[in-house]
């Protein structure tokens, strides 16, 4: 019955599900973690999930094949840019608040 | 056709106060007296122009006159179109006159921030006149809303101690109604556009009215749209049960504010019914009429009864307004000539008489800084002239024949009787209550020995000053003139009345009747 797994790596669904799972994990991290940086990392996970799905799509269609890689690269770059800004902001607020725990940043509410 | 010497007179009447306001804005606020006289000058000039208009107006022809039009937002066929027919004419003159008087009446009472006050007042006049002359729904709506702002400031800045509550209540309440009306306006305009395939004249009142004659605004749509209009106007009038903003607003507003509020603002509602609601939705009007008549009757009696027990002079007059304006809506919705003419007459008279009553209350308030009836008494001996003037307008308000109040009320009642005797009978009983609350109030204020409270004031309690008398004399004169020659107004508005009536097809009178 394990042979049911045969050709798993040949199926787009597998990759996409994987991507979905990764995305879900990332979002869980984002919702659950308190530390700003952990949340940042979670976001990175989600972006990677996106990339994975893009690559997967590309891998299984001749027409999209090349475009997939290109898009993935571009997404990566933008992710990098986001990370830069994000970390800068984290550092800035850490200077003010002396804590990386986001749920303690609730001076403004309601 | 524009004005006599090719002048755009209507626009002149409408926007002259705006010009004045701008000029006043540049006067030094350090010199209130200058500002006051400037404002008065502008108001009088406007009044004069409106008189010129009246003179040039031919009551013979029922059509709109002095019409000026220019494309404004062609994309929607929105135009700047103004003109006057008899109805507008009467109310415009009423507006300009009362504004001038109110400004004069503010000389004494308003001591701080005179400049802002006068500017607000003049802008208010622009709005009110505009509503009466606008012949384009969009334009009308703009003026309609424009009225809110200055009134909001006048009550809110120069009002009594509870002014902010009152003014916000006033604005919000009015706004709810008028915004729904906006939706209805758009719907109507669009229905027209959809049928014509173009926006040409889609907001033009006459065009739409003519279009409505084809029954286009019937059915559920008409019913709902009329409902929206009704809400807007009923709140302004105000009809029971939408009247509760009025006592608060009146009590808090400065004297002149109350005068204009009662004298003109309430008329916007009645005018709206006649000019817009009926011609645009004749079918729905008939459907709604019974309900509206019942509400009016309740308002008439209820307002009077509640007025009986008011401890505060202004509140009493405010509730009397509810009662009196009930006649207006009653007269309108019996779809009957005498009723409608009476309603219009009643609007004018109520403007003059209630305005005067508020002025008189203001006079006493100036001296006592109190309006509690219980504290008054015996003014007859201390300030005879004041008491006499008060008495005069009280009886005018009671509806004494020979003074203007009577004719309007009687015609309204008569019209109602023709349409529906039962309703008329109910309404007529207000004659008793009106006499009740007014005479009781007058007795407690003017008769008897001078009260402790007033005696305490000593020499502060002076009789009327000339300037105060000057504000009242014209009103009194008009009350007498219109009492003896109501024809002056009736003939003026006859045309509009006829037009409105055959717009609503004076067919089936309301079917509550006993003998119908």
């Amino acid at each position, binding site marked *: 019955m394990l042979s049911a797994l045969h050709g798993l790596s040949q199926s787009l669904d597998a990759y996409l599900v994987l991507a979905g799972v990764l995305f879900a994990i990332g979002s869980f991290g984002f919702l659950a973690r308190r530390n700003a940086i952990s949340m940042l990392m979670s976001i990175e996970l989600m972006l990677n999930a996106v990339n994975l799905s893009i690559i997967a799509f590309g891998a299984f269609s001749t027409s999209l094949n090349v475009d997939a890689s290109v898009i993935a690269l571009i997404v990566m770059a933008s992710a990098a840019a986001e990370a830069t800004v994000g970390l800068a902001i984290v550092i800035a607020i850490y200077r003010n608040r002396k804590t990386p725990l986001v749920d303690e940043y609730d001076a403004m509410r309601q | 056709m524009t004005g006599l010497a090719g002048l755009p007179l209507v626009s002149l009447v409408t926007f002259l106060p705006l010009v004045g306001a701008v000029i006043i804005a540049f006067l030094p606020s350090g010199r209130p007296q200058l500002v006051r006289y400037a404002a008065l000058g502008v108001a009088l000039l406007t009044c004069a122009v409106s008189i010129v208009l009246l003179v040039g107006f031919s009551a013979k022809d029922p059509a709109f006159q002095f019409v000026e039009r220019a494309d404004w937002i062609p994309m929607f066929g929105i135009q700047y179109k103004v003109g006057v027919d008899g109805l507008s004419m009467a109310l415009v003159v009423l507006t300009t006159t009362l504004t001038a008087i109110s400004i004069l009446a503010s000389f004494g009472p308003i001591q701080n921030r005179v400049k802002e006050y006068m500017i607000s007042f003049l802008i208010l006049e622009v709005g009110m006149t505009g509503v009466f002359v606008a012949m384009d729904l969009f334009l009308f709506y703009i003026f309609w809303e424009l009225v809110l702002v200055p009134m909001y400031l006048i009550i809110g800045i120069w009002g009594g101690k509870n002014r902010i509550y009152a003014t916000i209540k006033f604005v919000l309440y009015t706004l709810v109604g008028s915004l729904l009306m906006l939706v209805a306006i758009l719907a109507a305009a669009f229905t027209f556009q959809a049928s014509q395939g173009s926006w040409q004249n889609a907001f033009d009142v006459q065009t739409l009215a003519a279009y409505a004659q084809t029954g286009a605004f019937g059915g559920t749509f008409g019913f709902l749209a009329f409902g929206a209009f009704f809400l807007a106007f009923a709140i302004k009038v105000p009809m029971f049960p939408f009247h509760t903003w009025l006592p608060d607003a009146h009590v808090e507003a400065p004297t002149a504010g109350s005068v204009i509020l009662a004298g003109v603002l309430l008329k916007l509602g009645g005018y709206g019914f006649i000019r817009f609601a009926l011609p645009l939705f004749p079918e729905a009007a008939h459907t709604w009429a019974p309900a509206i008549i019942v509400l009016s009757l309740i308002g008439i009696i209820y307002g009077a009864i509640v007025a009986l027990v008011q401890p505060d002079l202004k509140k009493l007059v405010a509730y009397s307004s509810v009662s009196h304006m009930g006649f207006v809506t009653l007269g309108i919705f019996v779809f009957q*000539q005498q009723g409608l003419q009476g309603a219009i007459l009643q609007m004018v008279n109520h403007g003059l008489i209630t305005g005067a009553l508020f002025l008189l209350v203001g006079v006493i308030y100036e001296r006592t800084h109190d309006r509690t009836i219980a504290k008054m008494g015996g003014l007859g*001996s201390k300030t005879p002239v004041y008491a006499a003037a008060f008495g005069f307008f009280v009886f005018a308000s009671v509806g004494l024949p020979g003074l203007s109040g009577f004719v309007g009320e009687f015609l309204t009642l008569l019209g109602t009787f023709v349409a529906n005797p039962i309703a008329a009978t109910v309404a007529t009983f207000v004659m008793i209550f009106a006499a009740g609350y007014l005479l009781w109030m007058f007795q407690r204020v003017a008769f008897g020995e001078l009260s402790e409270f007033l005696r305490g004031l000593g020499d502060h309690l002076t009789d009327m000053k000339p300037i105060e008398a000057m504000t009242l004399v014209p009103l009194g004169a008009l009350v007498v003139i219109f009492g003896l020659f109501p024809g002056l107004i009736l003939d003026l508005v006859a045309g509009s009345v006829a037009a409105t009536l055959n717009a609503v097809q004076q067919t089936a009178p309301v079917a509550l009747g006993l003998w119908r």
Partner: protein
Amino acid sequence: MHLLPSLPFAVTEATPISFVDASMYPLLISLIPLLPILGFAFTALFGRRLMARWGRGAAEIVPVGTVIVVWVIALLVIVPALTHAEPFGEHGFETKLWTWIPAGSFQVDLGFHVDALTAVLLLVVTTIGMLVHVYSIGYMAHDPGTWRFFAYLNLFMFSMLVLVLASSWVLVFGGWELVGLSSYSLIGFWYHKRSAALAAKKAFIVNRVGDVGFALGIMAIFVNTGTMNIQDSIAKLIETPAAALTIPLPVVALLVFAGAMGKSAQFPLHVWLPDAMEGPTPVSALIHAATMVNAGVYLVARANPLFAHAQEAMVVVAAIGIFTAIFAASIAFTQTDIKRVLAYSTLSQLGYMFAALGVGAYAAAIFHLMTHGFFKGLLFLGSGSVIHAVHEEQDMNRMGALWRKIPITHWTMLVGTIAIAGIPPLAGFFSKDEILGEAFKFAWFDGLAIGYVVWGVGLVVAMMTAFYMWRLMGKTFYGESRVDPHVEPRIHESPWQMTLPLVLLAIPSIALGMVLGLPLGDSMLSRWLEPVFKESEAFLYGEGRAYQLFGIDGYLILASVAVATIGLVAGWMLFGFFRTRGRRSTVEAITNANGATRFLYRASLNKWWFDDLNDLLFIRIGGRVAAFLWWFDRTIVDGAVNGVGFVTRDAGGGLRRIQTGRVQNYALGIAIGLLVMAGSFLLIVGQPR
């Protein structure tokens, strides 16, 4: 047999008499109401200054002068109108000033109509009005507000004249309200007196109750006929078949009668009149005895065809009239305030008039209106003189034995008393007897039972009237003096301005009956008024009936004279004449009696508790209702409005809580939103297309 044959108009067949050219009449008629209003305006505006500057005389000259002029002009109009001279003819002359209310089909002229009926009223109003003005000069000699008083009097003259002259219902209503106003101002003339202020208000409001009916009646008339002109509308009303009328005729008639009840203080709207005595006595004489209170009678007489053609209405009128008559008389028995006694007697007499109208004795009613106007005016002015003499004391228990001190007043009042009592040949006898006789015959010949009732009760009332009038005389002028000793020495007869009118009024009180009431059955007055009433009378009685002096009418005369005499004698027994004998005991015996008598006594004393009833109904209960409604307005109506506001704001207050300030919460919110969004999209996509 004619008395005073020299009198120009005392000729049997009314030969037309006219003093001026016909074209003058419009002007003259218009001047009659116009002058008084001008007088009012002038006095109201300048009277105060004139009085301060040149004394009261300066303030009085204009108003009094005006009224005298008006009286003269009025005579110029009255005589030809009564004698049916051109342009008046039988149906009167109408003149129009301008169209008052032009409202499409509803056209109201501001115009005047003068016929015999109008003329009679004009005669009463202007004559008594003039005399009262003169009298007031003396009576108000010490009042600081004289100018105001005369201004009001002129205003009243104007209003009353408009009322009687008006050619259209609406204008009648106008005068109707205006006399209400002037009566209000005059009752409340001493406004610092709370009782006066209250009485004035009460008078106006109670009148308004009747006016509601009148107003509705007018509207009904318009709906039925489409015209407001009195003559035309009446003509239309009676010729239109009942079925074709929107509003049934009886309803119309009764609505109009409601107005009359208010003005003429008929039960149950009688409550205002006694209180109205708070006003200065000349006012009571003029307005509340001689003129205004007759307006109701005039109105019904004017509208007589309406009633004639609506028998139900007639019955109601008669019933209410005669009931008021006896009801008021019963109260007059025990009142001690001299003016109140007269007031109740006025009520009672007005009741007579309505009873007469109710049984179709229109001419008789008007006749009584005239005679009563004069002798009641006389009595009131006399009482005023008495009050004046005893220094503003009105309680008869503090008078007595005055007849020597103020002889003129005494003798004139005695004339008045005998006149009202109905002793021939004084005026009262003729009019009252005619009423009773007509009532009886109405039942006898036309078989309407109400006639017997009116006659029977009428007789009783006649007796009572004679009795309480003598009681008044006795308590005031005879017996031993109960006057305050300090005042006693200073009692004096009134000045000539006051006594002269008394004398002038005494003359018609004596003679008027003989002048107008003879020959019996075909009197001068009835001939004058014949055109006004002939239609109705024809409708009611068919062909006229021969007058049988030595038949039924004779017995009726005897009956009424008999009861009047009995009443007088009874009064004499109890309240004496010139000299006192020990009769007080009997009076006390009655006042202290037990059982029914006691009840009746107390009922009469407390005016059958009517004021208390009104107080309960309108002040207490009504006040509660109003207070409740106000509470309702603030709490329910306004509460709802504010409620919406509060709810909205609180909703906002609640919603803002979801903004916790914690990113993760926000994120979770977004995530859930995402899930919902995804779900809904999948659903939408899932839909078959």
